[in-house]
Every structure is written in C-alpha cells, then in structure tokens.
C-alpha cells in the first residue's frame, strides 16, 4: 500500500497573522484536542461547547416562528384590517404549533406528572409515547452520525453512510430470516453483527481505493450508495430474499428470535437505542482513549506528521472506513430488526445523509452526536402530531431542521447576533479534506 502523505487538513479558520507575543502568553487552555485526561472541568468545557448549538437552536425556532405566521393566510389577511388581532393570532399560532411539536416529541409535562402521581400504568404508558417515538427516530441517527463523525476524525468525508446502512440491513435481514430455531441470545447478536459486517464491507471498498489509489472517498462513497440501493432492489427479487407469494420487492420476515424487542411492553422504543448508545461509548473510547484512535486523530490532523511518527496512513484510512461503514450498517440492522422486521427498498428516509448533519452539529464528538441525534429525532417524532393538532405542515419541521444546521454551520453569525466573543482556539472541529488530496 502506498503510504504517501496526504495533503494536510485544510487550515482551520486562522487568525490573521497571529500576534507575536511573548512565550508566557496565557493561551486558551480549552483549545487543544482532548486525547488524554484533561485537567480541566469537563462539565465547563461541555457547557461551553453547547452554548453555540443551543443559541443556534433558539434562533432557528425564532426564525421558524416567522415562517409559521407568514405561511398562515388567515393571519396574513388580518394584518390589513386588524393588526392587533393579527399579532395576537400570530402569537397563539406560534405557541400552539411549538407546543404541539414539543408534546409530540417529549410529551405533555402535566400528563406525565399526573400519571406518575396516580401510579396508573396505562396513563404513564401513553404519556411516554412521544418520548418513545423520539428514541426510535434518534437510534439510526446516532449510528449514522457516529459513522460520519469517526471518518471525519481521520480526515475522511463519508457520504456513503446511506449505502452502508442499506447493505447492513440486507445482511441483517438475511441472517434474521434464514436461521430458524436458534435461541434469541445467539440469533439476535448474529443478525446485528451481520448488519455491522455488511456496512463494514461497503466502507472497506472506498477505504481501500483511497489508500491504494488515492481515489477520492467522496466520489467513491456517493457511487457506492447507488450501487447499494440498486443491489438491494435486485436482491429483494431473488428467490433467496423475496417473500414467498409476493411479486414486489420485499424480503421475508425476520424470525422473532432476531427481533429487537421493546424495552418496555407497550412502548415501541426497543433495544436498538441501547446498541446505539453502546456504540457511542465504544467510538468515544476508540477515538479518545485507544492507541488506534490516537493514530486516527493524528492522521486526520496532520497526515505527514503521522507518517513521520511511524503510523500507517493506509491502515488508518481503511480501518476507519471499515468501522464507519459498520456503524452505518448497525443503523440499518437496528431499523429493520427493531421495526417492521422486513426489508423493502426506500425504507430509509435518508438516515445516512442526516448522519452527516448530525455529525457536524455534534462537532464530531460522540456525546455531541448523541445529543444532535436526539434533537433531530425529536423534531421528526413531533412533526406528525404537530401537523394533526394544528394543521401546520410537516415541512415546517424540515425548515427548522435546515435553519438549525444553517446557524450551526455559521457560528460567526450566531456570535454576532448574541455578541459573544470568539474563542481563541485553533479549532477542535475536523473538516474533511478538499478535492486536492
């Protein structure tokens, strides 16, 4: 394998010609990349990291409020004749819409409280339904987000999480329906593991091509998405996979022994979330506490220095893509095994692509990814109840999601709005390499 040094990561936003100041300058201690135990308050650091995303969220909802009002023709018509009434109506429309969104994603606090007080299981169950739905939506996003974030750490832009997810789901389904009469504690891990293997295979190809030939992973992973999607469509019509007696592309049903069952009877939230959270912990440990993660990050930040230190850039490239693919494959397995237990084309509403956003919003840190995935999961889960309760179209949620991303992608804008001073950091964000590599 060629171990040619890659172009270093494009310069992080640099300060103009850093001032030449004496050595004793107290430089921002929050700047460096956390690799080894940091002697600084972890909570303080995390809170600071959350400030900008929180403000971005706030701003997105603020702008979203205008969208709600501006798209309501009834209110718009009132402005001419009764501005006071229009203002009041606008306010109530915004409050109702956001209230419905919140109730649909987290739940009604009052209902939850009374359910706890009354100790009525049925009431409690129904109060927890929105949260359960949020968890279901967040599960695949955590995994695809981790997939993209891990590759980012090594300086690779994995656009292929969607394809990896599909191949993972195919592998999981095949193992899921073809083993019969196996106890669940063997069958389920095998099916989930098959999902990982399928995704890993799909990540391995672009990783290998990148390491061997320098083929740009963005192009290769995008193309691999098409291959994956059409491969699934074909596979679903083969005798091996297609459900008996069906002419459309749909797989056989996964045996109950391979299903990710609900954690609590009566709620849809299943053990997939536990897999996702465990994966987040595993990725965190791998990236920040293991020797391989040290190599990953070194290669991501400065491949030349990594090579000089005796690390293999090829190995890190291939390995990180394999693990990233595996994580996306797990997402596919979790969706299928925890949901319909059957595979059909187009079952993913773009979990792989949303993973890119989740990874960026989460600042490529596992904890951030989990938080971002829950945020977007909540928006998704709350959208349908919001639409049925207030008539606000589902698209508002997509708009808010887009606004959140927009404000997070432009931190300078948020800082300017809230007059926050820029931190003097060298930037802990990792950006994938440009086209020149």
């Amino acid at each position, binding site marked *: 394998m060629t171990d040619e040094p890659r172009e*270093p990561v494009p310069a*992080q936003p640099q300060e*103009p*010609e850093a*001032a*030449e*100041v*004496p*050595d*004793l*300058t*107290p*430089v*921002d*201690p929050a*700047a*460096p*990349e956390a*690799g*080894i*135990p*940091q*002697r*600084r308050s972890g909570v303080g650091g995390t809170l600071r990291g959350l400030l900008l995303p929180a403000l971005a969220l706030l701003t997105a909802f603020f702008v979203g409020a205008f969208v709600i009002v501006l798209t309501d023709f009834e209110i718009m018509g009132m402005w001419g004749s009764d501005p006071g009434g229009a203002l009041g109506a606008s306010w109530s429309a915004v409050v109702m819409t956001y209230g419905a969104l919140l109730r649909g994603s987290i739940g009604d606090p009052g209902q939850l409280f009374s359910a706890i007080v009354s100790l009525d299981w049925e009431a409690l169950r129904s109060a927890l339904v929105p949260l359960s739905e949020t968890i279901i939506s967040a599960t695949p996003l955590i995994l695809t987000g981790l997939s993209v974030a891990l590759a980012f750490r090594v300086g690779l832009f994995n656009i292929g999480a969607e394809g990896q997810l599909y191949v993972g789901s195919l592998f999981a389904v095949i193992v899921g329906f073809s083993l019969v009469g196996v106890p669940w504690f063997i069958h389920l891990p095998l099916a989930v593991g098959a999902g990982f293997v399928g995704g890993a295979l799909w990540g391995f190809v672009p990783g290998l091509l990148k390491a061997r030939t320098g083929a740009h992973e963005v192009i290769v992973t995008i193309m691999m998405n098409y291959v994956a999607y059409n491969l699934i469509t074909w596979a679903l019509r083969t005798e091996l996979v297609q459900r008996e007696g069906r002419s459309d592309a749909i797989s056989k049903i996964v045996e109950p022994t391979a299903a990710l069952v609900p954690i609590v009877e009566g709620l849809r939230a299943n053990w997939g979330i536990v897999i996702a959270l465990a994966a987040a912990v595993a990725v965190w440990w791998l990236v920040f*506490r*293991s*020797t*391989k*993660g*040290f190599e990953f*990050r*070194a290669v991501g*930040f*400065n491949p*030349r*220095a*990594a*090579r*000089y*230190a*005796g690390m293999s850039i090829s190995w890190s490239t291939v390995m990180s893509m394999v693990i990233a693919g595996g994580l996306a494959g797990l997402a596919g397995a979790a969706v299928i095994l925890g949901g319909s237990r059957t595979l059909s084309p187009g079952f993913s509403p773009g979990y792989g692509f949303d993973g890119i956003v989740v990874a960026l919003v989460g600042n490529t840190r596992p904890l951030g990814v989990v938080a971002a995935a829950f945020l977007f999961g909540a928006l998704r889960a709350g959208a349908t109840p919001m639409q049925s309760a207030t008539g606000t179209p589902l698209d508002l949620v997509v708009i808010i999601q887009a606004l959140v991303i927009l404000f997070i992608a432009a931190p300078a804008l948020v800082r300017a709005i809230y007059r926050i001073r820029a931190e003097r950091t*060298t*930037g*802990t964000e990792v950006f994938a390499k440009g086209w020149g590599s």
Partner: protein
Amino acid sequence: MKLELRGITKRFPGVVANEGIDLVVQPGEILGLLGENGAGKSTLMNVLYGLYAPDEGEILIDEAPVRFGGPGDAIAAGIGMVHQHFMLVPVFTVTENIMLGVEETNGPMGALDRRAARARIVEISERHGLKVDPDALVEDLPVGVRQRVEILKTLYRRSDVLILDEPSAVLTPQETEELVAVMRSLVEGGTSIVFITHKLNEVLEVADRITVLRRGRVVGTTTPAETTREELATMMVGREVDLVVDKVPAKPAEPVLELRDLVVLDERGHPAVNGLSLTVHAGEIVAIAGVNGNGQSELVEAITGLRDVDNGEVRINGRVFENDPRAVYAAGVAHIPEDRMEDGLIGDFTVADNMVLTSYWRAPFSSGLRLNGDAIVESATELVDQFDVRTPSIFNAVGNLSGGNQQKVIAAREFSRPLELIVASQPTRGLDVGSIEYIHGRIVEKRNEGTAVLIVSTELEEVIALGDRVAVMFQGRIVDVLDPSEATFERLGLLMGGAHPEETQPEEAVEMAAAAAAASETDD
C-alpha cells in the same frame, strides 16, 4: 520620508506586547530591528502597518502625526510590507499579482490594463535589479523570486518605507546575497527599509542602525560599527550567550551509521541521492552542508525508514531496516524532522500528546489497545520541566507555542530515551539565539555521551560550529568531507555550488598534491 514611532504600547489580554516603543527611520536608511521570537517585533510592525491600533503612542510621518485605520491607510501613506509568509495568488501571473488591489483599467467596461501595469513593473524591476519575468505564474517561481514579487508589489504602490519581516528565513545564502543587493539599491534611491530579523550576521552586514527589542521594549539602538555579535546577542537575550558551541574534542568510536553507495529516488522517480557513502561513528557529529534540494531530505528519510532505498544500503549498528520507521525508532534512532509543524508535531494535539507521538504504542504509554493517560501525563510533566519547555500547561495545543518551544518539545520527545543515533534536519531553523544555544547544547551533550549524530543544515555557521566533520552534499553525493577547521564559508560555498574539491583547496595544498603526484609518477 521620515517615519517615527513615539511611545507605542500595545496590550493583548494578559500580556503587553509592546511597551513605550520609540523608533525613528530616516529617509534612505536601513534600520535593523532585532529581537528574539516573541520580543514584539511583528506586533510593532503590524501596528505600523495599520493591522493593530496602538493602545498608546503615535506614529509620525515627516513630523506629522497620522492614524491608520487599516493597511489601506498605511499603504496610502507610503508604507509597504513584505510578510514572512507571502501574500500571493499562485495561479496569477507576476503582473496580475502586483496590480491586484491597485488595478489600472481602460475602456468603458473597465478592462484590466495589463500592458500598462506590465510596463511599469518592467521599469521598476530594471531600476532596482529585481529580475522577474512579469508573465510567469507565481506558482512556478522559486521562493526567492516570489519574495522579489512581494517587494515589487510594494514599490508598485510607491512605498517610501519598506518593512521586510524576516526576509532571509526562506532564502538560500545566494538568494540572501541578491536580496541584500536589492536593498542597497533601494536605499540609494531614497527608500527607507525596516529589516526585521533575529540573525545577527545579517543585521551587522546590512543595517545602518540597529534597534534591539526584548520583551516588548527597546533595549537599545546602535550601529554595526559600534557593536559586536556578542553584544547584540546579549542585548537580545538579556544575558550572555555562547555563540560558539562549547565542546570537547570528539572521541569517535565504532561506526554506528553506515551508508554504502546509497541511491534514493524522489517522488518523480529520479535519483535524489545518487551513490552516496558516509559513515558516522559513535561520539561524533557529522554535519552535512548543502544547498536545499540536493537530496538531503531524501537521504534523511531513507535513514529513518520513511523512504525506500533503491540501491545500496543503510546500516544502523550493522542492521538493515527496510522502510520500517518504527523499527528504526526502536533501534535507538532519534529524528528531528526538517519542518517542525509539518512533520514533527501535530499542532492541534496537546504538548503531552505530542511528547508521545513516536512512542504511544509501547509501554508504559499504552497496554494493548488502551492508551495510558496517567503515564503520558506523568512523562510529559517531567519532560516539560527537564527540557525547559515554556508552556502554560502540558494540555495546551502545541501549535500555540513559539517555534523554540516547539523544537524543545521535539527534542524532549526524541532525546529522552537511550539513543544510538540522532538524525537532525535543520534543527535550529527559524529559532532565536537562546533556543539555538539550547538545542546545540543538547546535541553536543548527547554526542559526548557517545551517540552518533548526523546533522543536515543549510546554515553554514551551524554546520561549522557543530560538526566534528563537515560533509558537503551536492546533487545527491557527498563531494568532500572536511575538518571544521578547514571548512571556511568560502570553501563550503564553492563545494555546495558544485566546484571540484581540488579547486577549492588552498593553493599550497594543490601544489603539494601536484608535486606528490608528479613524484609518484616519476617513481614508476
């Protein structure tokens, strides 16, 4: 134009970068501004160039106070700056780069008038001996010529005061000489130059007056006639500095590094190292002098296992390591790479992480897959102390440290274990006097302990001061190996330029050699 700074003070949070600085630049003079890294030179020049507003003090041009709101004001006032890192667009031609920002246009559509610009550039470059092809793309030009483009840029904007920030840092000795000639020509035409540097020889050679900064204050102004290198160094550092590397005679022992007929290819597949043989013994320093690009980088990479050996062999204590940097490391080879920030360190990593960059994979820093954070922290704390790395904490990003401290981090990492061989490329490039003294001291100390040392440097002073033997590399070969006592600047310069060793020997020696040859012929 007379430029004066009065009582300039500039504070940054927690630090005073400039304090009450007074400075005068007379028309047609070269003022050398000397100071260590971090003395406040660049801050001062950025104030002068309008990039920073001073907290106190004023700038006067021809006795009249001026205020600069930004570089535009400074340029309009006739101040031109050549930054250490060039501000050029690589895919533009020289002409386009020079006219950028002050484009002349003609016609109703405001088309660029490249022809008029080109004519003026040719005129200016001929007047000052700044040879440049105005139609060449900047990306095709060597560094020295790019610098000329930067100087032309300022002249094109009719600057009367030119600020050159560390102009020689990126130049070869020959290019530096050409730069000096250009500077002389400019001041003859009435331009004033502020020449920022930390190199003592240069400032003594070029400047009319020298102002020394230390810790943000002016410590004194003098002229080259009135001062010496030693005195300037003391002013800069604030204590007496050993400019001569203090070392006892070498006691070379058994050979450690043996290179035989080594051939190493560069990226394009051409032999960069072409049949090179050299032996470095335990307890001696062999310094390789040479103009950049004569195969030094490839040689070092081949020795340290980073590049394939095409032919010949590299033996370290008799063993051959093929393209396995980690095995070379484990055999007790320390490597100080040519470019600290590109190759030696990961700027975003902490000091502690950088300290284990080459050893994280072995005990006690890891066990199996697990990094042992406590051991890493413990070792880094000790090394920072032992190697006097000035950093607020070991958890600071190494990219935020000064160049000297970054090099100390590398030295700490590489020297803090039992060593057989040190391979150091440009170990003191861009460092100030104090740091150079420190790094040199550490290298000599290791040599005295019996480590074999190979230094590659383009700084002749360093080569002569440090080497127990001086080898000259030219086009991938060692053309001669000299004793430092006979390695004069002139002789090394000639050898580095490709002259035959016989041509460079003192005349007597040549005659004697000729006589000996004649004698041996008659003997036959």
